[in-house]
């Protein structure tokens, strides 16, 4: 993992042609090298990753993901692509039209498998006034939509898929990657965010229809600024459910975080201590919600009560 630079990287962009030869981007604490010979992916990735700092070619990347056609014949007949990663990934070849999904899955795999200096939790995260809120949850819990939507309000978006907690400092490390939206969340977010920040929809994926959303500019400009974890909210989305916050004990929060840890098993004692510190310093609660407005109100309420100490939930 790269050490954060003290200075801000200037926001930049790259061309599809550059990506064919390989381009290295700064994505939070990681230097990620992307490469592909799939023209449509290079085109879409150069749009989706617009604004991410481009790292000089002579700097070593933390990992690379290369999305390529599975064979020459496959470029012509029912083309399929596969994501090649430093650590071999159990990712099946996907239709070429889903090359962006293959790229993001490859990055997910690499982050989970190669991060040694931070806990990697399946969680969204946001920051306000130097403190962070973490939304641990599995796929379908609504954590991505919640993080994306609140990131358009007065929160800084830190990530939607993984929340990184530095082992040494205990801080939340921003890793504002493109936001993965599924099914009805796509229309929901298209009503809130500028359309040019979305990729096309990818239909028929294993998770239904997907689209990716580029994070807000502030999230990219401040991706070197860590935050102090202050609140753990475990979201569960269900249409029509009454919104409710249910305080959660430390032991339950700990167990849930272990279950949602992408690299906890590999970190050993430092991982245990970092996770224990997280639940000992952050109040935790289950958040059940049926609409973004409900979720926003409860998150604000929880923040005011448990972090700012202003009101009672």
């Amino acid at each position, binding site marked *: 993992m790269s050490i954060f630079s003290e200075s801000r990287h200037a926001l930049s962009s790259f061309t599809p042609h550059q990506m064919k030869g390989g381009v290295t981007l700064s994505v939070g604490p990681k230097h990620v090298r992307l490469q592909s010979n799939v023209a449509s992916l290079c085109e879409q990735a150069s749009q989706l990753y617009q604004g991410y700092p481009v790292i000089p070619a002579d700097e070593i990347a933390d990992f690379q993901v290369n999305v390529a056609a599975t064979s020459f014949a496959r470029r012509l007949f029912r083309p399929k692509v596969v994501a090649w990663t430093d650590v071999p990934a159990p990712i099946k070849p996907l239709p070429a039209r889903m090359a962006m999904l293959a790229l993001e899955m490859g990055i997910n795999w690499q982050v989970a498998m190669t991060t040694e200096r931070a806990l990697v939790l399946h969680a969204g995260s946001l920051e306000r006034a130097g403190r962070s809120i973490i939304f641990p949850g599995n796929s379908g819990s609504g954590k991505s939509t919640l993080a994306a939507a609140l990131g358009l309000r007065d929160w800084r978006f830190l990530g939607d898929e993984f929340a990184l907690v530095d082992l040494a400092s205990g801080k939340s490390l921003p890793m504002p990657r493109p936001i993965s939206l599924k099914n009805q969340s796509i229309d929901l977010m298209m009503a809130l965010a500028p359309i040019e920040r979305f990729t096309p929809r990818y239909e028929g994926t294993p998770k239904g229809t997907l689209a990716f959303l580029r994070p807000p500019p502030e999230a990219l400009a401040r991706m070197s600024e860590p935050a102090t974890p202050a609140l753990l909210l475990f979201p569960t989305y269900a249409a029509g459910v009454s919104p409710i916050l249910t305080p959660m004990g430390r032991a339950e929060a*700990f*167990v849930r975080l272990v279950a949602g840890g992408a690299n906890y098993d590999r970190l050993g004692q430092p991982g*245990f201590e970092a996770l224990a510190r997280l639940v000992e310093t952050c109040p935790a609660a289950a958040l059940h919600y049926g609409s973004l407005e409900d979720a926003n109100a409860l998150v604000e309420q929880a923040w005011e009560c448990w972090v700012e100490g202003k009101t009672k939930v």
Partner: protein
Amino acid sequence: MAIAISSIAEPNYIAPSHKLLWRAWDDVFVVYNALSGRTHILDEFCYHLLEMVSEGRAKGADIIAGLTDRFDIAAEGDLADIVSLRLQELGSLGLIQKAPLKDDM
């Protein structure tokens, strides 16, 4: 009914105490075993058993004596069986192990 302490299977138990990390939250105890890399959730009873083994109480009878002292309870009923069973469970988790008897050494 007082239990026959001598009827408890009498292996010596030891715990790799220096390899165990603890956290106690409410009435739940989380133990990380650095030897195995596994994390365990224990209830209060198992936690105290493990703690006693870690303190050097190696035999079931010693542990029952420790429990009755600590919690002011009578050593009766099926306490011996429960202790024996839970010690076996802790053993199966790798948190304690049977030490070789002196006669075996």
